């Protein structure tokens, strides 16, 4: 089985984003960028499946500017066999990303596609589902467990209030949640080895995909500061307010 993992270069999770002073966009000048943490989990899962002897090849794909090569190198340093960069300086929204990935998948013919459940920049949580829809494949979103089971895939999913298990036909798309695994540390020698692994570059035009954004950002603002409320004199008042005013209990 061939596995393809999609990885996005996004703001590092330790770094706080803030809007530009004029509210036109998010200020990302010289901000540290890393692999989207959910994608890192997806990469780890792909490698684990391969290490368990259930995958013949693992491929990482990224879409974006030249610097996404670093993200792909990280995936390869973790253990992925090769990388594909679909290079573009355009803004790529989830639907466009799904279309680009679909085009790559049609070339590569993987049986399993892994992605992070969402990217920590736009917090869309869409690309995996959209990709599955465009391919006509089943989807296992918010995965916290993935197992191969008689020709198909059994996916444990984190749903509100518990865990759901579904069985999917292959080929399938799976998106990783936080608890699927804990990604490994990248080892120094593997970073060096990753520099020698193959990395192909494609363009959006070669793939013939229309990536025109459908959403326009009109304004990026700081969240409004939360205002303090009232002090209550005692517990009885507090419980009363929660029941009858806020209606949250």
């Amino acid at each position, binding site marked *: 089985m061939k596995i393809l993992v999609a990885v996005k270069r996004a703001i590092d999770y*330790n770094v706080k984003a803030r809007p530009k002073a004029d509210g036109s966009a998010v200020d990302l000048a*010289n901000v540290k960028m890393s692999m989207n943490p959910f994608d890192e989990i997806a990469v780890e899962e792909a490698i684990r499946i391969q290490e368990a002897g259930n995958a013949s090849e693992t491929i990482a794909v990224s879409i974006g500017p030249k610097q996404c090569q670093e993200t792909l190198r990280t995936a390869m340093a973790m253990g992925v066999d090769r990388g594909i960069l679909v290079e573009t300086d355009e803004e790529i929204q989830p639907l466009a990303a799904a279309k680009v990935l679909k085009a790559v998948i049609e070339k590569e013919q993987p049986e399993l596609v892994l992605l992070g459940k969402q990217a920590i920049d736009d917090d869309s949580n869409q690309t995996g589902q959209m990709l599955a829809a465009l391919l006509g494949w089943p989807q296992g979103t918010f995965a916290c467990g993935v197992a191969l089971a008689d020709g198909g895939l059994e996916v444990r999913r984190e749903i509100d209030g518990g865990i759901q298990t579904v069985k999917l036909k292959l080929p399938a798309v799976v998106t990783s949640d936080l608890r699927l695994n804990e990604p490994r540390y990248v080892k120094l020698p593997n970073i060096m080895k990753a520099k020698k692994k193959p990395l192909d570059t494609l363009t959006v035009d070669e793939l013939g995909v229309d990536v025109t954004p459908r959403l326009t950002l009109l304004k990026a603002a700081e969240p409004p500061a939360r205002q303090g409320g009232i002090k209550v004199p005692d517990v009885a008042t507090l419980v009363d307010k929660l029941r009858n005013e806020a209606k949250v209990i």
Partner: protein
Amino acid sequence: MEREAMEFDVVIVGGGPSGLAAAIRLRQLAVENDRELTVCVLEKGSEIGAHILSGAVMEPRALDELLPDWKDLGAPLNTPATEDRFMFLSEKRAYRFLTPPQQNNHGNYIVSLGNVCRWLAEQAEALEVEIYPGFAAAEVLYHDDGSVKGVATNDMGRTREGEEGPNFELGMELHARQTLFAEGCRGSLTKTLFERFGLREGVDPQVYGLGIKELWEIEPGKHQSGQITHTAGWPMDMSTYGGSWMYHFDDNLVSIGFVVGLDYQNPYLSPFEEMQRFKTHPLIRDVLEGGRRLAYGARAISAGGYQSIPKLTFPGGMLIGDCAGFLNVPKIKGTHTAMKSGMTAAEAVFEALADESASGVEVAAYRERLEQTWLWDELYRVRNIKPAFHWGLPAAIAYSAIDTVLLRGKAPWTLRHRADHETLKPAAACKPIDYPKPDGKLTFDKLSSVFLSNTNHEEEQPCHLTLRDDSVPVKVNFERYAGPEQRYCPAGVYEFVEEGGETRLQINAQNCVHCKTCDIKDPTQNINWVTPEGGGGPNYPNM
């Protein structure tokens, strides 16, 4: 289990200006002479520049020598210095003084040193330097003959208790024919080298300052691109060494900072609060009001200068940059000297390694060459300015003028330093300082400041702020000095908390911005800062 090892000709510990300049110079020489030479740079920050914090006004002298076409290569030196102001502050007023000659900045640039380092790293990588950010050198390795063999990175994935966690990875050994330590001020490995090779014998103790910096975006109408302001006086009292900077650069950005000499005596002093209070001065408030604070950070700097420079070489390795202490204090600059030391080291190392069998040798030529450069002359001339501040500010200013203008730095005497951890007076002999409360607009508390440094450490790892004796924090630091670490730490790492009627020290290691002040100022030198897992610490953007 045995650690894996990788072999290089040269390993450089630290990806700041000196380490990167050394790496670039080494590879330039290798290319020019058509010689194979592998160079590796280890950086504990998550990326190059993540741990770099500086004013910074940069004198391009060393850069001109290293990469003469830096403008064409897109170096981020975008704001030429235009106006120099030196102000003496009283609580309400500011008096403009003649700018000391060392502070004339014509021809210099206001930069983000972090961004300069990011750019230097690109130049280094283009020359095939291997740069590994996110990996911390945690241990010096030695050959049987006692010479330095290289360094080892720390293990990743240990639990708080030091056990092997689920993702445990053993550290790596990096072996080199020559190891260059470029750790910056108060390097944790450098400290062990000082002891092992007696590098500080016969020189003055190093003395330090703690610089606290904020980056602000101000209202466009107030921005004076290229303007440089330094202040002395308020809020420091006359006996405490300290001063500020304020630089206008790039698009409506202002770099503002306060440096407190770590030889201060009152344990109630809080450098962080001094910085906050300083901003309430009309001179500063007027500039910042209506703007927003973008970033915060802190870093100790070496201020000892010439008389504190240690022995620089030992078998198998050498010290470059601020871990040796090449900062020019009156000039308030160290980037050009750090780079120059790295470049000079590179030239000496390149020559020594021409002998294929040379491994673990001491390259004494580094210091000999350094003494012939402008760096040495520069530091010698200003050697008496900082120590004169022991006499208090007015006397120091008078002395500085005589030393600089009349004697031109060639005074037949040299004033001495004493170590910063010895200067605290007992709390009983000092007055607590009543600092104003933060307003959340111009002044802030520590934790909301640390928030802007993007600091994080993997939670499950042994505490990297180690205590030699667990009883000392309460018995000595708290009881005698009223817990000075609560105040000198600019990141809120140390807190004395009461639990069940007993006081104990709570160490919030995750907040640590790697400034090294605790390692320096702790009165009994009980705190030993060791490097946490690579990639931890602040993630400074544009600092």
